[in-house]
């Protein structure tokens, strides 16, 4: 499958945006979680430090003493004392524990306390309130008691914030990607519009309109450079085609005059009194060869002139059905000589706009070919029908047929199928090229369907004559 430039541009930009957005999302999530973590660690340190100041020890118990009228102090203590406990560092005995923590029944053994004391690091535990992080700090109170204070904060708000951010990323990145893709699609259309305009303009240029040039936008961008290069090519092509046309006209004269001299002298020789029948025969054979050469030159020149746009077709209403009937009538004896059944089955009256002479030639070439390539007792049928604004001419034979490879190039110049199957009367392989040219000149097409040894059907479609009055079939 080939992808259009536009599709590729959009795909590349979307993939790039996707990678960028994903990287940005991962990085920002990482930075956010680090910041939140750092903030929490700092807050925990503040809470721990502050709480040390409010702790008072009285023998085996500890209590918090603060000024309840100071709302700041009250709020601070409220926050710091949600999850806290203190142990006697020496004995491992629990001195005080907040209600919230007591409810979780997380008792530390004296051995645990010793371990905390040896390495007072923060730790996290999972509880039914979500994750909690505890600080460990060992201090000595005013009365000389060494104690271990653990203050906890809930990690749940941080986790929730991170989860929300992650969810945000999970839907916003794809949405942003879709938006970016749509924007790229629209932008690429905008960017490629001049290119498709150039393509349309270039398509309209054929060998008959080589004098045309593509317009540049005068901005000197890459597209203008391409257009300039293309115009340069057109210029060289126009020059070359001009030379070719002059050459084909010159060729006509240069070849025909010596051929005329040659043919005339041979004809004179054959007439000369006293020449033997064998000599006359040889002369006749030479003249036949010259005539063949002349026909070939004529065909080549006709085709060359046609393709060089030097032949102008007339446009007039042509009754395709009548044309086919009269042609078949005139060629019928030719088919009969080979015991071929040549029939016309025009089911409908069909009018087209076109050049009578050239359309006649088109049909003649097809029917002549069909008869040529059909063996004795075969059939050739010409059908003229109309459907959906199109005139359709079919020439079907039961001839030798074409292989699918041959059928593909049947309309190429000088194409001849396997010589073993071609009759000796076959031409130079220019007739079908001319058929294709004539069809194209009438904005029509010609196609062939064929099977070896079964026959071929050539189908010509031409636009119907517009506003043609309905004709009785």
């Amino acid at each position, binding site marked *: 499958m080939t992808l259009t430039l536009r599709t590729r541009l959009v795909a590349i930009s979307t993939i790039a945006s996707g990678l960028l957005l994903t990287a940005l999302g991962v990085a920002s999530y990482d930075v956010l979680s680090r910041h939140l973590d750092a903030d929490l660690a700092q807050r925990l340190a503040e809470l721990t430090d502050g709480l040390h100041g409010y702790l008072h020890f009285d023998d085996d118990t500890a209590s918090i003493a603060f000024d309840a009228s100071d709302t700041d102090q009250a709020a601070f203590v409220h926050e710091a004392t949600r999850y806290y406990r203190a142990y006697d560092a020496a004995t491992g005995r629990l001195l005080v524990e907040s209600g919230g923590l007591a409810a979780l029944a997380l008792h530390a053994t004296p051995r645990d306390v010793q371990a905390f004391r040896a390495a007072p690091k923060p730790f996290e535990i999972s509880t039914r309130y979500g994750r909690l992080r505890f600080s460990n700090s060992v201090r000595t109170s005013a009365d000389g008691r060494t104690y271990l204070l653990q203050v906890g904060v809930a990690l749940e708000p941080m986790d929730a914030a991170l989860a929300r951010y992650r969810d945000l990323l999970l839907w916003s990145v794809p949405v942003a990607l879709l938006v970016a893709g749509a924007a790229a699609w629209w932008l690429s259309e905008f960017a490629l519009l001049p290119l498709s305009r150039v393509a349309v303009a270039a398509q309209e240029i054929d060998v008959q309109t080589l004098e045309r040039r593509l317009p540049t936008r005068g901005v000197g961008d890459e597209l203008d450079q391409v257009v300039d290069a293309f115009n340069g090519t057109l210029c060289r092509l126009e020059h070359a085609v001009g030379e070719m046309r002059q050459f084909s006209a010159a060729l006509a004269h240069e070849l025909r005059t010596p051929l*005329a001299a040659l*043919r*005339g002298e*041979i*004809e004179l020789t*054959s007439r000369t009194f006293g020449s033997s029948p064998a000599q006359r025969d040889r002369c006749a054979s030479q003249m036949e060869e*010259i005539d063949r050469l002349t026909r070939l030159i004529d065909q080549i020149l006709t085709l060359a002139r046609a393709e060089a746009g030097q032949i102008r077709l007339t446009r007039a209403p042509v009754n395709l059905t009548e044309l086919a009937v009269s042609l078949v009538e005139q060629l019928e004896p030719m088919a009969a000589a080979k015991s071929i059944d040549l029939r016309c089955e025009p089911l409908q009256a069909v009018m087209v706009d076109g050049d009578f002479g050239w359309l006649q030639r088109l049909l003649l070439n097809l029917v002549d070919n069909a008869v040529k390539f059909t063996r004795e007792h075969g059939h050739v049928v010409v059908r003229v029908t109309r459907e959906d604004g199109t005139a359709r001419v079919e020439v079907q034979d039961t001839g030798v047929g074409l292989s699918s490879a041959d059928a593909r190039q049947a309309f190429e110049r000088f194409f001849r199928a396997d010589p073993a199957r071609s009759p000796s009367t076959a031409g130079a392989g220019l007739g079908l090229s001319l058929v294709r040219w004539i069809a194209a000149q009438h904005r029509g097409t010609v196609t062939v369907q064929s099977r070896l040894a079964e026959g071929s059907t050539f189908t010509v479609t031409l636009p119907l004559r517009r506003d043609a009055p309905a004709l009785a079939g």
Partner: protein
Amino acid sequence: MRVLVIEDDRKVASFIQTGLEQEGYAVDLLHDGEPAGDQAHAIDYDAAVLDLMLPGRSGFQVLRDIRARKVSLPVLILTAKDALEERVAGLDAGADDYMTKPFALAELSARLRALLRRGAPRESVLRVADLEMDTIRRKVRRAGMSIELKPKEYALLEILLRHADRPLTKALIIEHVWDIHFDSISNVVEVHINSLRNKIDKGFDPPLIHTVRGVGYVLSDTPS
């Protein structure tokens, strides 16, 4: 009959001269168009054969020179170009007929005969040996027996009869008998000649329609 041939290619000019002289014409040759007008004026020619591509003065100019002096001289144009526009331009410029190189001598002389006969009354009954064609009643008889011909066969026989004893090229036959430009690609002439032979020669003696190899066909009661 005296014919002026204006043709710059000496070989072509020479075979035209020889060929026409063999048929009994007196032929004068000119290799360029400059003196053509004067000569055509000075000598009372019956027809002129004019090449379009001449050095110096083009065939069209020569044609105008001739027409300026002698309006009625039949002129047959010879050219190496066969484009339709050229044909039309030649005939518009006052030429009476047109031939493309290379051509058969037989065709040149047939066309010249046609030009020379122009204006002469056409015979209404054509005869060769015991073959008879009544062009008014469109009846054909051989040895007194009536023969039915299809329209194309009739037209073919008529042109052969009008040029009896003179070979006719296929190109000339097609031009006169068919309204299709068959372009020599099809053997339609051979086929019609064959069906005509079946009707007028089969069972009769001598055969009248002969093939002249390399040229075309001739209707004659004397074998070539």
